[in-house]
Structure formats: C-alpha cells, structure tokens
C-alpha cells in the first residue's frame, strides 16, 4: 500500500514496524526481568532444599525441637538457633516498631519546626549507613558494658521468671536484641515517614475539619491509611532482623545450650551459619542447610501472616 500524506490524513497513522517491535520488545524485556526475581527465589529455595535433603532424611521434624548440636557425634537439632532467631527478631520488632513509627509521626505531623524535622530525618538515614560490623564492635565495647547494670537490675527484679534467671555476663540475647533495634530502626522510620507523607491532604483535612484532635486524626485516619505501607516496611526490617549475621554473631554469644533467659548467651540461625559453615563437613553442612531452609520458611510464614493482617485493618483510599 503506497501512502501519501494527503490520503493518510483521515486514517490512523501507521506505526512503523520498528516502533511496534520496540513496544513488544520492551514488554517482553520487563516480563523477563520480572521473572528473574521469581526464578532466583525458586532457585535459592531449591538449592537449599537439595542441600538439606540428607539432614531432613536423617533428623526429620525432630530437628526443629531438639537442642542437641553435636558435631562430634553428628547429632543435630536447631531448637536453640530457631528460638534465638524468633525471640531476637520479634522482640527487636516489638521495641523498634513503636519507636520507629513514633519517630515517623513526630517528623511528619507538623509537631516540630521543619528544620528540626529534616535534621532528625537525616540522622535516622545516617544510622542506616553504619556497617553492621561497626555496630557489632560498638555493641561489644560500648553498649554491652553500658547496659549491663540495667540488665543486672532486671535479673534482680525478675530473676524468678525463666526469661531473666541467669546473671548477665557479657554477650547474650538482650544486647543482640538491642543492636538489632538499632539496625532496623532506620528502615521502619524511613518507610513509615514516606507512607505518612503520602496520605492525601484531603483526608487529613476531612479528619481535622470535623473536629478531630491531632491524636484522633493520627490514630483513626492517618495511620490506618498508611498502615499497609508501614507494615511493608516492618516486614522488610523483620527480614533484616532474622537474617542479620555479623553484628548479632559478635554480641549474642553463640551458645549451643538452650536457655529461655534473655540474659544468657544464645544463637540465631544466621549467626550459626556464619560461624560454622567454614569448617563444616559431611552431614553438618546438610544440617546447616536444613537450618537455612527453616529460616526461609519462617520468614515466608511471617510475611503471609502480615499480609493477611494488613488486609483486615488498612484504610484503602
């Protein structure tokens, strides 16, 4: 079909083949790139499952509830590490979420002058830039000695509960939890701040316009409207807390003995992997892979639960 411009004036402009090719090509490219994420996840999962195969066959589900970790007799159970992972990351979240979301509210809701707000925001972001090995060192030499009197007080007051029944003597679960708080606080704060800033002005005006107090507006309207993004940030930080290796390994004590006490040395799956993978051989490698698989599944379950919670409680605007 020969075209001249006067004939084409009243028809759709024909797109040159190159342009159409670029269009479809771009679509396929984004599809391919997006699939890479899913394939990577699947690949990692399969590799770890393959590696864990031997240990799963040998130890079965008992691996999850046994606290024996005995490379000499090749008896492995990950209870200490699983308990340590769950307790340290969940307690760290329990402290960091109110603190981080509170900071985010403080720096978005016009409570303090703008200049002070951006200063606090900047400091929070700088906190995220500190390498975890530096935080670990700081935890060993500065934080842990500094908080030990407080931990001893806890032991004196609450020593009758299983959670505080050991005397704090250096590295342990409690300082590890606190260092995790320091590490995940910037993530929670930064994401919550962005989420709160994105709540539309109209919604704020609506809340204030009917006579909400500032706190009423924040807790009934603004926070629920931002909650799904905030929970997304909390999930990211939970992933970080569960997977954090270096700082935790430096301060948690890497104990293989089970103890409920937060003041005693403990272990996490990530810390255990980092400590033992280098010199492990035979079924110990497989047992470590099994532990890693447990970590992945735990993270996955927590994520799914969080998504379900968010769907229940968020305000969608």
């Amino acid at each position: 079909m020969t075209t001249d411009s006067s004939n084409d004036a009243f028809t759709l402009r024909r797109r040159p083949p190159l342009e159409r090719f670029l269009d479809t090509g771009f679509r396929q490219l984004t599809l391919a790139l997006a699939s890479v994420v899913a394939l990577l996840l699947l690949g990692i999962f399969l590799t770890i499952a393959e590696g864990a195969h031997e240990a799963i066959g040998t130890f079965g589900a008992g691996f999850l509830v046994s606290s024996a970790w005995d490379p000499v007799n090749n008896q492995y159970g990950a209870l200490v590490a699983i308990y340590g992972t769950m307790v340290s990351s969940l307690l760290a979240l329990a402290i960091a979420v109110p603190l981080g979301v509170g900071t985010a509210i403080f720096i978005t809701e016009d409570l303090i002058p703008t200049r002070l707000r951006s200063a606090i925001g900047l400091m929070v972001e700088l906190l995220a830039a500190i390498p975890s090995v530096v935080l670990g060192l700081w935890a060993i030499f500065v934080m842990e000695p500094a908080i030990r009197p407080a931990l001893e007080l806890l032991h004196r007051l609450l020593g009758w509960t299983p959670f505080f029944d050991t005397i704090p003597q250096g590295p342990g679960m409690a300082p590890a939890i606190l260092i995790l708080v320091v590490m995940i606080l910037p993530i929670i704060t930064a994401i919550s701040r962005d989420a709160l800033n994105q709540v539309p002005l109209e919604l704020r005006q609506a809340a204030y316009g009917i006579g909400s107090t500032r706190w009423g507006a924040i807790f009934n309207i603004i926070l629920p409207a931002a909650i799904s993004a905030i929970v997304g940030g909390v999930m990211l930080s939970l992933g970080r807390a569960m997977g954090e290796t270096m700082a935790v390994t430096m301060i948690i004590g890497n104990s293989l003995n089970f103890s409920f006490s937060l003041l005693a040395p403990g272990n996490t799956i990530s810390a255990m992997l980092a400590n033992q993978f280098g010199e492990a051989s035979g079924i110990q490698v497989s047992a470590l892979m099994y532990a890693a698989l447990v970590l992945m599944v735990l993270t996955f379950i927590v994520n799914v639960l969080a998504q379900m919670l968010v769907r229940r409680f968020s305000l969608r605007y």
Partner: protein
Amino acid sequence: MTSTQQKPKTYANDVCMSLENVTISYGNFEAVRNVYIDIPHGQVTAFIGPSGCGKSTVLRALNRMNDLIPGCHLKGRVIFDNYDLYEPHVDPVEVRRRIGMVFQKPNPFPKTIYENIAFGARINGYRGDMDELVERSLRKAAVWDECKDKLQESGLALSGGQQQRLCIARAIATEPEVILMDEPCSALDPISTLKIEETMHELKRSYTIVIVTHNMQQAVRVADMTAFFNAEAVEGGSGKVGYLVEFSETERIFNAPAQQSTQDYVSGRFG
C-alpha cells in the same frame, strides 16, 4: 442534645461571625488584607471573586483550618459567640466542632458510609442512638434514599455528588452551628449541583452557611448575602493581594452594586 437542634428563628441582621480587619499572610506574602465582614445568622453568605483573591483563605480562617498550613498567619479578629477565635487560649479543635466544613473535592473517609457519619459524632461525645443520628444526618443532606441500602459499603463507592452530600451529612452529624463550604460543587455535574443547592436551602433553617463559589449563578440561587473579593497588584511586590470590594445583599451585589469593579465582575466584563 435534641433541644440544640431547634434553633429559634433569628433576625436577618443578627450577626453570627464577624471579621474585623482580618489580614492573612503565608510567610511574608499577604494573601488577603483588611477584611471586615459581618456574617448574618441563619443565612447563606457567599464569597465570590476571581481566582487568587483570597476568598478560600478567608473561609478557612473562619474555623482555623489555616492552622494546618505551615507559615499561615492571621492578623485582626474573628469574632464568634463573643470570642476571638484566634486568642491563644481558644482550642482550634473546639472551633472546628462548632464550625464544620465541606471541602472542594469530596473527601469521605475510606470507611463505610455509616462509619463516615458515626466517626465525627463519636469523637464529639455523642451518646445517643447512633443509627438514628446516621439516618437523620443523611436525610438532612438529602442522600438517605441513595444510601439507606448500603450503609455498610465504602463511602468511596458512591458517585461524586453523593460523596459530597455524604460529606455534608458528616459535617451535620457533629451538630455544628456554622457550615463552611469551599466550592462544594466545583467537581460535580449540574444535577448534583442542583441537589446540593436544594440541600443548602433546607440547611439554612438550622445552620449558618458560608459558601465560596466560582459560579455566580450559584451565588444568586443560594445566597442571601454576597461578598465580592478582588485582587490587586501590590507596589514593589511580586504577587497580588486580595481584598474585600463589597459586601451586601446578593440582590444588590448582582443588580445595583456600589462599586464599578463589582459591576464589571458580575456582568462578565472582568479582565
């Protein structure tokens, strides 16, 4: 509670709110200066004028919504119920409970229709029958028939006009004395606009209404009193500053204004 509902019919020249030499600035920039208006009780007062003349700014000053804008500052006095609303001890939350507001863009909460009404009433300490209040508020805002079968659906599922009437119902539910409306129909089609105007005629029996509108026909249809604002360039300044040109009965503003610029604006000869 129910007794405050029936306000005695008041005289036309009974003043509800009065602005005395009000100047509002954003940072160093004056938005509107030296405004004097006595808003009469139980009537509809319209603010008209070209864009940027400060009429919405003045409206928001009436219930201290400008407090939410950083750097916004007011000089002069806004008298309501014998109080200057800008005295330091006055609580802006209390002001907004007594002086409700409907915004330009319908902004229902992303909650159920029922909850949209109940939320405001609850925070105002309403202890009565909530179902009854929801129905009464929706009826007053003339949106009950469209909403009664879907009270548990999201307020955002309604059409734009219905959403705006839901917002009016929400404002009514907190039992304010004054309702401010900031171009409430600018995002709506003519039929919805007409319905809201009919609602306003009903509402002015119980409430004092102040409305900002760009639509001069709307001012003629709904308003008893009209204030015409204009903006003028300031010497040495970069922007324009708004000022009140004329405030009088709507009929006079549109038929026999005292100022030439009012005449030009209402007859469409405005620049």
